[in-house]
């Protein structure tokens, strides 16, 4: 799971060549603080453009989605508040336009290739219109236990993490954080109480090489720049602004390669590349309503003056499913199609639980009813010569 980039920012440019991908026409725009309409621009940079970390806390995302209309009956989401939101961070008028930037596909050779060679989801949204921690909680627990912020959350019975569910049922599962200097992001309680379900990225590579990968693995990128063993330099690979996007590309490519070059692993593994939330960066698709997870965040926690009942999703994020059982160029339709399917991070424990544990009840009904992200898999294995390898 990567950090803080929207679908349109990373993959929106693909629509020109691949019309089924619900990306950008080039006519999408947002008003700036002067009221001038600023269109999307294919000028995203790897680093140095979003050095003011764009706001993605709950009130900021509310402004981005609703354009500044305060909560109340009948308000309509219009995705018109992204520049306004970024400008409130003291960026200056011109720099605030950077929030509308997107990458031309050729600038992201790894993500672009995986999206066009395997399956891309047009309708994968962050679980909450808010920041990292609560969104990542959905990927591990299928709920954020009522949180919409960055605070440390405490797990409430009977809901267990997907890893604990797996291990207790006699299956194997692991969270691989990058290294001790980067560590794990949101689940320190789990690290404290269940250290055996953790490993490092180098252990992940070793497990791939030794064909000892657990049945379910969650892989975290590196979250900070730090010296490496023996005096090297380890770059953050999470793609969180203002970390270098290219290094994240290399991280994804290395992870893909580790599976791809082991034939048995390649033929038995599905790899999901997904981002936790949009990081305050523009996307044109209005997040849909969703089934509540039975929780409510009070107004003093949301910061918008209104409570939030976890009944609508956050901004859309890139999501790609990789497997040799997926036909090239698969696009899973989203909100643009009446028959489209909506995905969010609760689909991760939802799909894994349904796949391995079948009827497991100790989870939210939102997770239980979530869509199966393995649906793009077919029965036909693509020839080995038909699948790429990255030279990293």
């Amino acid at each position, binding site marked *: 799971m990567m*950090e*803080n980039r929207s679908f349109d920012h990373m993959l929106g440019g693909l629509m020109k060549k691949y019309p089924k991908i619900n990306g950008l026409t080039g006519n999408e725009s947002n008003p700036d603080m002067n009221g001038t309409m600023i269109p999307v621009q294919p000028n995203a940079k*790897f*680093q140095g453009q979003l050095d003011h*970390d764009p706001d993605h806390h709950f009130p900021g995302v509310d402004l981005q989605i609703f354009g500044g209309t305060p909560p109340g009956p009948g308000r309509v989401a219009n995705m018109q508040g992204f520049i306004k939101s970024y400008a409130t961070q003291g960026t200056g008028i011109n720099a605030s336009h950077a929030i509308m930037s997107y990458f031309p596909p050729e600038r992201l*050779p*790894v993500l672009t*290739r995986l999206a066009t060679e395997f399956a891309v989801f047009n309708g994968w949204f962050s679980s909450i219109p808010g*920041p*990292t*921690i609560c969104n990542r909680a959905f990927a591990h627990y299928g709920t954020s236990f009522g949180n919409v912020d*960055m*605070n*440390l959350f405490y797990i409430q019975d009977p809901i267990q993490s997907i890893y604990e569910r797996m291990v207790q049922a006699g299956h194997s599962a692991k969270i691989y*954080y990058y*290294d*001790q*200097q*980067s*560590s*794990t*992001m*949101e689940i*320190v*309680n789990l*690290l*404290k109480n269940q*250290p055996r379900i*953790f*490993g*490092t990225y*180098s*252990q992940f590579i070793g497990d791939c090489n030794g064909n000892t990968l657990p049945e379910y693995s969650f892989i975290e990128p590196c*979250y*900070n*720049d*730090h*010296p490496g*063993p*023996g005096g090297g*330099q380890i*770059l*953050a690979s999470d793609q*969180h*602004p*203002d970390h*270098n996007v*290219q*290094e994240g*590309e*290399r991280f994804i*490519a290395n992870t893909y390669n580790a599976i791809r*070059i082991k034939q048995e692993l390649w033929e038995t593994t599905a790899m999901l590349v997904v981002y936790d939330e949009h990081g305050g960066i523009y996307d044109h698709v209005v997040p849909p309503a969703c089934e509540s997870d039975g929780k409510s965040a009070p107004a003093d926690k949301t910061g918008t003056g209104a409570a939030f009942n976890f009944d609508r999703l956050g901004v859309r994020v890139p999501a790609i499913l990789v497997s040799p059982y997926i036909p090239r160029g698969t696009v899973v339709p989203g909100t643009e199609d009446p028959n489209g399917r909506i995905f969010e991070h609760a689909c991760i424990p939802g799909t894994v639980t349904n796949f391995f544990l079948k009827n497991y009840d100790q989870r939210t009904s939102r997770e239980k009813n979530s869509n199966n992200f393995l649906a793009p898999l077919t029965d036909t294995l693509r020839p080995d*010569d*038909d*699948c*790429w*390898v*990255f*030279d990293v």
Partner: protein
Amino acid sequence: MEKKYKLVAKVPKTPKSAYDHGRFISSLIEHQIKHFHEIEKSLLKPGQELTDITKIKTELQASEYLKKMTALLHPQGAEKPRRVAPPRKTRKRAKAAKSKGKGKGKGKTKSKPGKRKSR
């Protein structure tokens, strides 16, 4: 890569200039540190001092604190020390060693005197 693959895509290198461990920490890392600080409080033994996390400003400082805490919670995640391969003897050096013969072998060889095997 031992096997030859038909479809190979080159991935550009990240420029060295991207590295900056003096970068100020983002709100994300700040919260990550706060979470570990909560755990540190819960593990504190009498006489031990709590880390002053207000002094953590840069990614380098953050990484040092995270390493300390993670090593405590998950020592299995420690980097294994890299094996340093012993220098290979050239023929010349091997010959010289042989002619010197019988002395104590330099370095960390465990072979017994008189039973050294040539490589």
